[in-house]
């Protein structure tokens, strides 16, 4: 076997170990199953369960759950079950987009700071300390007033606010890897910094990165719901679970329970699912490290 193949096989081993540990844990099974079910519900659901979510129909408003509308209708006549699917698309898309953008931004920033070291690292870290010292909601409230809310500005704002944690983690990981023998060996063999980053640092830090990316989906869906509650969420015609929940809350004590509990339940189930998956990835990462 050529040396390169041996090398690859050895590198794949911890990944396979991690995957096996992941597949064994019940948190992973429940989390992943729930995420798949939610994605199917939101994206495939509207193909099977067709509802009118475009035009207002006041004849159908405020209907209690029944045979034609399993979860009733809201104050403009939209079918709540169909609305949940549509709103879920925004919530999930936003969660995933923010998670990916956050991870990329944080990884690059953290890796650069960790590799550069010295004064550059110190300055880059003070920037993070500064932004972390302002609570995210405070920053977001200021920024929402600057940029008019739309799906993309909210994605951008949530990303700008949530990459800090990832950047810190990746920097710590890079700094601890920098002193390891195999990195020193690669350096003595004349590998360039970018090669060391790409072939040694990132693959070794990938576990930490995936863990924070998974939690980041949950965090951004949670953050979006808080923004919606404060009236600063996605503007119409977009809807998300937080907005549905918030508008339902006005009438909770008037008996319109179907406008409140379904969006609340699906919102919490989603956050629980991603958090369970995140916990499972972290545990399987520990399984790799223990070996």
């Amino acid at each position, binding site marked *: 076997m050529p040396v390169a193949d041996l090398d690859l096989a050895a590198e794949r081993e911890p990944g396979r170990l991690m995957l096996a540990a992941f597949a064994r844990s019940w948190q992973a099974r429940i989390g992943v199953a729930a995420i798949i079910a939610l994605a199917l519900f939101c994206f495939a659901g509207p193909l099977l369960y067709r509802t009118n979510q475009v035009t207002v129909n006041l004849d159908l408003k405020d209907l209690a759950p029944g045979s034609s509308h399993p979860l009733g209708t809201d104050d403009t006549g939209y079918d709540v079950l169909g609305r949940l699917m549509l709103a879920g698309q925004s919530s999930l898309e936003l969660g995933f987009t923010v998670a990916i953008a956050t991870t990329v931004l944080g990884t690059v920033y953290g890796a650069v700071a960790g590799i550069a070291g010295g004064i550059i690292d110190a300055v880059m870290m003070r920037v993070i300390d*500064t932004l972390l010292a302002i609570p995210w909601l405070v920053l977001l409230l200021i920024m929402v007033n600057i940029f008019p809310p739309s799906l993309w500005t909210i994605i951008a704002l949530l990303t700008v606010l949530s990459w800090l944690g990832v950047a810190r983690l990746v920097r710590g990981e890079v700094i601890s890897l920098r002193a390891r023998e195999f990195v020193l060996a690669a350096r003595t063999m004349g590998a360039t910094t970018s090669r060391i980053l790409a072939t040694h640092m990132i693959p070794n830090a990938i576990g930490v990165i995936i863990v924070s990316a998974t939690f980041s989906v949950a965090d951004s869906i949670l953050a979006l719901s808080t923004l919606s509650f404060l009236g600063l969420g996605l503007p119409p015609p977009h809807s998300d679970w937080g907005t549905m929940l918030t508008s339902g809350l006005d009438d*909770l*004590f008037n008996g319109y329970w179907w406008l409140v509990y379904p969006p609340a339940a699906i919102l919490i189930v989603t956050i629980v699912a991603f958090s369970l998956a995140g916990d499972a990835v972290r545990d399987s990462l520990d399984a790799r490290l223990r070996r």
Partner: protein
Amino acid sequence: MSGYLARRAGQAIVVVIGVMIVTFILIHLEPGSVARSILGIRATSDRIAIFNAAYGLNQPLYRQLISYVVQVAHGNLGTSYYLQQPVSGLFAQRLPRDLLLLGASTVLALLISLPMGIYQAVRRGGLTDNVLGAASFTLYCMPAFWIAVMLVALLAVQSHVFLPEAPAGASVGSMLAQPRALALPVLTLTLVQVSGFSRYMRSAAIDVLAQDFLRVVRAKGLPERLILSRHVLRNALLPVVTIVGLSLPGLVTGAIVVEEVFNYQGMGLLFFDAATHRDFPVLLGSTLIVGVATVVGSLLADIGYALLDPRIRYASR
């Protein structure tokens, strides 16, 4: 230790100045003129010019920043555009209410989550551990506003145990005199914090329980209750001290939501209104206060860590 502290204090000052600069730049990015949003859309250009001159808004941005920093260094936070009151006076009125809200809920959360975490660690894998774990995990995944609304529904609307709105009194004393109104805001923030603290306490206690010195303590014949309170609790407290010190920004976010739900007249609500009315001095002042509190919180967490654990020595490099 003192060298380390000096270095950390230096970093803290840099961070606080950074917070001021970031907020300053951000709020001045807002399009449209402040004068118009305060004086109304039909304000004449003369009135706008007077407003801008009075608040120094006709100066270049860097000049405004420098004069703001100088002003803050003299202990003057400026005058609210919207409420026409000194910002420091507004804060003096609001801050004690937040100290009450955050202080009471943090103390309550610790009183609940410390024993809960230790109990879960001792009986780990058991039914109670799993039930409590699942409960705090679910709580952790809930938006703070949802917890607040559910508490109102259960404890104020269905059973009239507590009131759905925060006490209206001006002083902390008069708020304390209305425990039924104060209960739900405090309880909401308590639950938000218990969900975080108890997970840390549980895993910290599990780590302590696995250590060798506990076998010696047991062999000595110490009763289990004393082992837990004197040895396990003390050692497991260390990571929790850090978490409490670092949890402040998250707590402030929770406080904004809770104050909005219960109409609790604290800093969070003041900030929220200032953000919608573009009341710059109040916005700048509140981020400054929160920034300072966060930095001091993490500094205190480090110092507390060293005081509680003599094994920890900070390098004064």
